[in-house]
């Protein structure tokens, strides 16, 4: 056999099958999926934390041991309505996220498809993007008070930005030849948006969604420090006043779990709805 090889083929272990002899190239992509790959990193972090606390390397004053956090969790659950706090936080971020995602996506489509829309929408959003949300909150308090309204609007605004940026970018990256095809087929503007623009921008939207979900939690942490009567942030603020490190860690862990679950949900959805793509994601 005379083939020119630029890389050295790697011999694979033939699993006892003498009839299957092949020359296989070194794989350059990430390769096959690992089962439960998603959990390996977090479990490893938990293990390091546990070992650190057990051996005394991590002092309780610095970071409470995992088991102390579990005890604090139980105490909060039984005596301080932790579930109520969780639900209150979840509700806040869910409403804010929903509003932000919807507005962000609609604005991205308008600004992506219309030059006038772009000139009206794109600039303000880029400006909003560079203003830290923390700096806007005092203004929002003046406008909307310190109640639920201000909190939801802040979260919505924070999650709107990544959705807008990524959906807009995804939409503009759609190959112009598909628009040309649509023109020759003679479909309406609505059909064009439904069958070409939205599916074509979906990968971008879903990436924006991953950022938006974590942004909404970030917003949650910030707004719940202002005059909240319930919520994880409220719980943390109280714990801070009483110096309860373990309760603070309970709050942090809950935030972490929220973010992780939400991100996993988005990634799983993405894998399902983007089945038409043949990418390294696999």
């Amino acid at each position, binding site marked *: 056999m005379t083939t020119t090889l630029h890389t050295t083929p790697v011999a694979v272990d033939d699993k006892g099958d003498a009839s299957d002899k092949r020359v296989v190239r070194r794989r350059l992509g990430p390769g096959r999926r690992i089962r439960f790959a998603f959990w390996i990193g977090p479990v490893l972090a938990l293990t390091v934390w546990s070992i650190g606390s057990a051996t005394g390397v991590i002092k309780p004053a610095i970071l409470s041991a995992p088991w102390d956090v579990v005890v604090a969790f139980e105490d909060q659950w039984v005596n301080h309505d932790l579930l109520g706090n969780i639900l209150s936080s979840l509700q806040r971020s869910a409403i804010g996220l929903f509003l932000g995602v919807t507005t962000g996506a609609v604005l991205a489509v308008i600004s992506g498809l219309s030059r006038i829309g772009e000139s009206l929408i794109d600039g303000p959003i880029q400006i909003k993007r560079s203003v830290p949300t923390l700096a806007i909150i005092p203004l929002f308090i003046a406008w909307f008070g310190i109640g639920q309204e201000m909190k939801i609007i802040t979260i919505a605004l924070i999650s709107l930005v990544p959705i807008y940026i990524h959906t807009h970018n995804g939409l503009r990256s759609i190959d112009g*030849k*598909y628009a040309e095809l649509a023109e020759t087929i003679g479909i309406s503007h609505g059909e064009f948006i439904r069958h070409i623009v939205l599916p074509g921008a979906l990968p971008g939207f879903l990436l924006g969604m991953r950022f938006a979900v974590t942004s909404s939690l970030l917003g949650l942490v910030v707004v719940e420090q202002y005059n909240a009567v319930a919520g994880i942030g409220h719980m943390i603020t109280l714990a801070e006043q009483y110096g309860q490190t373990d309760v603070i860690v309970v709050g942090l862990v809950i935030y972490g779990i929220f973010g992780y679950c939400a991100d996993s949900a988005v990634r799983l959805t993405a894998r399902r709805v983007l089945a*038409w793509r043949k990418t390294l994601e696999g």
Partner: protein
Amino acid sequence: MAQDTRGLTTTVEPAVRVRNLHRSFNENGGVLNGLDLDIAPGEFVALIGRSGTGKSTLLRALAGLDRDVAGHGQIEVPESVSVVFQDSRLLPWKRVLDNVTFGLRGPDAGERGRKALEEVGLAGRERSWPYELSGGEQQRASLARSLVREPELLLADEPFGALDALTRIRMHALLRKLCEAHRPAVLLVTHDVDEAIVLADRVILLDAGVVHTDVRVDLANRSRSDAGFAELRSLLLDRLGVDSE
């Protein structure tokens, strides 16, 4: 053998009528310079010519895809025009059947799409994603997408340019069969003189943005070994400035 289309005595209205068509991309001269062309209903015309002689420009003008190109002239085309591109242009996020029926109206759209897929030999692949098809299969799906619309004019811009030689031969037979069944007027842009002779009723050679040669293919036998085939082939190659010997 060469004959101007305007000299033909046709009783039916042409499906396509182009008069004095000018198109240019910059000031240094036009791509199309006063081109005239008639295509009869059901007639299969192949358009050949060297690179840059305006073949694709003409096709895009007929397809209505040249709104940003400067120029003037009259174009009359039928109501229903369908375009087959060099790439299959299947929407990657739609399954094959949904691609074929894309934009099709009526309750029987799915049924018609299935029939069209069957006609191009893709029965059973309705639920596949485009990336799961081979290049030839993708191009067949795109043919099905065009034909399911029952166009009066089919515009094809080097539809087989990206296919391998064997697949090409099979696609030639398929396209002829489909065109005989549906009888659209066809304008096929190609680089391949053999392809033009095998497929077309008429071969038009563009040069410098006008019709340079216009020949009718009156061959009983379209096999490459036929004497008439070889004669026509060397005539066209000669006009293209290629030494066929």
